[in-house]
Structures are given as C-alpha cells and as structure tokens.
C-alpha cells in the first residue's frame, strides 16, 4: 500500500509589541513573576479589554508578508475553558471572522518549489504559565504572559514530508524575523508549533483521520515527531486498524509519542463574539501603508542577491539567514565594490566570531566599513589571511579598527627579505636534523620550516614570500 503523508501546521507567534494585546502592561520576557499584571489581564471583576493598535499593525504586516488577504472587518470571540493560567475563564481570540486568510509561503524541497497555503491568521491573547513542579502540593501560576499578543497561523494540509515541514518553519521564521514582528524564539516560547498528521492512499482525494502532535520545542522535534507519527499510523493502518482522532504529546528525551486521551469529554469552547469589543475595522489606507512599509523579504532578497552579486545559491542562503546578516553583507559589498571577498569573510570568519561571542553580526562592534577595511588590508598584503582573522577577533573584543590594532601591535606582515632571512637563518640553524632530512628528499618538510618561521616571527612573516626564500636557502 502506498501511503501519502499529509501534514498541516498550527503556529503561535508572540508579537514583540511594547504592550499586551488588551491592556497596557509590558511584555518583557523573564520579568519577576506576576509583576507585569493589572486588573485587565488578572481578570479582576469589572475589568475590560482595550485593543493594542501596534499589535494590529504587526499582525497585518505578518499577514501581508505571508501573502494573505487581510480582511477589512474581523471579530473577536471568546473561547471558553477553565484553567488556572486563563484568568477570565475564556481566551479572547478570533473564530468565525479572522483577520486574514488565504496566504502562501514557498518552500524549496528536493530541488522543487512547493507553495504551502496559509488558511488563516488571527489575533489572540496568550495565557499565563502553569508550573507543576515548583511547589510540592500544587501548581504555581505566573500571569505575566497572560494577554501578550499572539498571531495564530494555520496552514492548509499541503506539506508532504517531515523535512518539508521543517523547511517551511525555517522559511516562516525567517520571514517573520525580517518583518521584525516577533523574536521567533522557540526556547523562550515566542514561537510554538503543533503538527496535524494524517495518511491517505496515494492518489486519494479525501484526507485521512488526523492526529495532533504537541509539545514540540524545536524544528527538529517537529521533523522527528512527524516521522514517528507517520510510522505509528502506518503500523496501525497496515494491520487493518483505524486511526483515532487524538492529541499526542512528543517526548523529546526518548523520541516517543504519548496519547493525551483524557477521561473528559471533548471540549466545547462555546465560541461567541466578544460583546466587550466591537468589530476590528481596517481601512484600506492603513493596509496599503503597511504593505508599502514591508521590508524586502527573504523570498525576494535571495534571488536578488544571487543575481546582483553573482553568488551561488548555497552562499546566498547562508547570507540571508537573518535580515541583519543580509544587510551587513550588502553593506560590506558596497564598501568593497565587489562581492567575492565579502562573501568569504562574512560567511566565514565573521560568522565564526559572532558564534564565539554569541551575538549577532550587527552587535559585534565591527561595523561593515571596518570589516571592509580589514579585508582590504589582507588583500593588499599588509597582513596575512591568518593574521587578518586574528585581528578580527581583536576587533570584536576591543571595538577598535583594524589599522589601530595592526599599528599598535606591530602586526603588519613582513615581506622584506632582510628580516625574513634573519628568521630563516635562525630556524635552519636550530633544526639541523630536519634540514638533513629535507636535503635527503623529504621535501614535504617545507611546511614544517614555514611553520617554524611563522612561530618565530609570531605570525608576521608573509608565508608566500617565505616559501620561496626557504627553498632557496635549503636547496643550496
């Protein structure tokens, strides 16, 4: 039996607004528990919601960036259930009339481009946090997060493989980062994903019964859990069984799925339009303005970089990983007037440094012109490539420019024969055994001698000039 895997995703994204969705508390991650609360998000009797305009703008931008139709009227609804981190006993969300529908995100997989349709995007408020292992005899509740604005993005079941799902999420995350509407940090909870998985026989029109997979903490967890669920479902179907619609929790540690089938009846959320909030009406001007203000998104930037700077695709993919990286790269290109060196230095040494100090490239204290200057100094031979990378490290640590550092530490590459000869002589004198071995035919040892001179010169010798000089001395 040939099975087709069908995957749909539900993604919750926290918007990085200054204030919560329905009240003016701050949204800072990691604040002291229950310190970012007020009567509204505490659900005190008599409190009322007031919509945050910035959140609406962010949601519209996200919807436009994902190719959606933004609706000029949408309605907030109450979704009722009881839970200690849901103070009002209902969540204010959007149900029958969401903010946006019908979007598209293109995903590259197996050399092809698949359009993945977005079914809907809507605004809703986040709940608080329930912590079960903090007090021995109960659950601790922190309501700081209650009321933080979220958009919920629901895809059509257009994904067909687990790696596709992962790639989709990467593209989605990157797009949202470019739009600067969210931190998209799964570890901090500003991006959460649930997967809906079903199988059908290849060629079938109808969808099979779907299960919902939750508790996914990373994109790779999404991928692995989908693989596991596919396997589980195939096992059942091939044994002649039926798939039960249920929710499964992914256990990251042992890579298994656990059913959440509880004794309680299925939920009736009793959605109805929230009478405390009139409909959200958006005028065309506002949507147009936000559309015009959208930054260039990855889907456009990638082909443009490839075209304009003659990059190869793999390099371009690395460079558009974040908007700040792509901006940085293009700034360096502008300074240098060419792309080749910019590509090598940005995707190589610069990213390494960024990784080393765990900061983003625009936060390293090395503005693009400074990197460009360093690159030029290497190109013109003032310092060797190796030395240049060391200098970069010092630029990051000190915030100084390349010329400043090279000058201060006397690091400029030595190419002149006199100084080089002195080091060469010294090395030859100190390594008579190796000299004999070289002269008896072990010409590979040239590398050893180069290394010794580099050490003696504390890296300042120009290896290119050196090789020639050494050979000359050794062969004579």
């Amino acid at each position, binding site marked *: 039996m040939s099975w087709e895997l069908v995957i749909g995703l539900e993604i919750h994204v926290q918007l990085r607004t200054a204030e919560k969705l329905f009240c*003016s508390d701050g949204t800072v991650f990691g604040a002291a528990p*229950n310190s970012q609360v007020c*009567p509204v998000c505490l659900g005190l009797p008599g409190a009322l919601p007031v919509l945050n*305009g910035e959140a609406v703008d962010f949601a519209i931008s996200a919807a436009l960036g994902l190719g959606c139709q933004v609706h000029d009227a949408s309605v907030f609804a109450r979704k009722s259930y009881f839970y200690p981190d849901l103070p009002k006993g209902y969540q204010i969300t959007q149900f029958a009339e969401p903010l946006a529908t019908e979007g598209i995100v293109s995903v590259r997989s197996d050399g092809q481009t698949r359009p993945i349709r977005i079914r809907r995007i809507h605004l809703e408020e986040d709940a608080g946090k329930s912590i079960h292992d903090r007090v021995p005899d109960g659950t601790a509740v922190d309501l700081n997060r209650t009321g933080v604005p979220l958009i919920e993005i629901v895809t059509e079941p257009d994904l067909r493989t687990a790696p596709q799902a992962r790639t989709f999420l990467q593209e989605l995350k990157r797009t949202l980062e470019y739009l600067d509407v969210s931190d998209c940090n799964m570890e901090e909870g500003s991006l959460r994903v649930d997967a809906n998985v079903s199988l059908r026989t290849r060629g079938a029109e109808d969808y099979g019964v779907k299960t919902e997979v939750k508790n996914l903490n990373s994109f790779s967890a999404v991928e692995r859990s989908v693989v596991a669920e596919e396997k589980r479902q195939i096992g059942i179907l091939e044994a002649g069984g039926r798939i039960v619609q249920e929710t499964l*929790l992914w256990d990251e540690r042992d890579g298994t799925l656990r059913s959440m089938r509880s004794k309680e009846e299925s939920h009736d959320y009793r959605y109805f339009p929230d009478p405390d909030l009139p409909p959200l009406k958006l005028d065309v001007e506002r949507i147009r303005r936000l559309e015009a203000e959208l930054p260039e998104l990855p889907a456009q930037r990638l082909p443009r970089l490839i075209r304009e700077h003659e990059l190869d695709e793999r390099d371009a993919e690395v460079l558009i990983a974040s908007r700040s990286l792509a901006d940085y790269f293009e700034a360096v290109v502008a300074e240098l007037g060419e792309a080749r060196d910019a590509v090598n230095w940005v995707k190589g040494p610069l990213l390494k440094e960024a990784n080393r100090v765990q900061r983003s490239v625009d936060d390293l204290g090395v503005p693009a012109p400074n990197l460009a200057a360093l690159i030029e100094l290497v190109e013109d031979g003032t310092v060797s490539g190796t030395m240049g990378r060391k200098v970069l490290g010092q630029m990051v640590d000190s915030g100084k420019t390349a010329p400043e550092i090279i000058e201060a530490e006397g690091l400029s590459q030595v190419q002149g024969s006199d100084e080089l000869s002195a080091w060469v002589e010294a090395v030859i004198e100190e390594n008579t055994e190796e000299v004999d071995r070289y002269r008896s035919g072990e010409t590979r040892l040239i590398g050893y001698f180069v290394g010794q001179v580099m050490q003696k010169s504390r890296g300042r010798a120009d290896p290119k000039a050196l090789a020639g000089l050494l050979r000359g001395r050794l062969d004579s």
Partner: protein
Amino acid sequence: MSITREEILQVAKLARLQLTEAESEDLSHDLNQILRYVDTLTSLQVPDGERLWMGPRQAPEREAGGIAPDPMAHPPADSAPDFRGQFFVVPSPPSLGGADDQGAEP
C-alpha cells in the same frame, strides 16, 4: 425543545458546577419551563445576517503609552486565596492540560 437530565449534567460539568439529585431534578423543571418560554423565538422569522452591535461601530485601538496600566491599590497577592513566593498556587490538575502545558488544551 427540552433539556434532559444528562444534558443538564453535561452542561453543569462544562460550567464547573456540581448538582445534587434533588437540584438537578428541580433545575430540570425550571430550565424546561424557561426553555418552553424561550422557544417562542423559534416561531420568529429572523432575518439572516448582521447582529446588532452595541456601542461604537469599530473597536477603538490604543497607542503605546496611550493608557497607563491601572495602578492597583494593593498587589494581587493580597486578594489571593493562596499566594507563595511570587506565584498564585492552586491544586494541581488531575491530568495536565492547558495552553502550553505539555502542549495539550484541557
């Protein structure tokens, strides 16, 4: 249209209310009486479409800094039945569920 005893108990569960035998009996009677009255609505030819919204035509939006958080005369801990350290404390749920509680909605 009438509501059965089972339905009343299901609804009570949704609303987190416990009813004794006697109460569900009495309530069954009351609720059905009210529902019979309310059923007059079904004879009404109601037009499809827009519900009547009370108040402003559209949701007002606030700007950042537009309305200060209402300063509270005393902290949330003061009204709470059980507040320890910096947290509200409640008995634990029977089976874990919640917006992100191991991922499952209750």
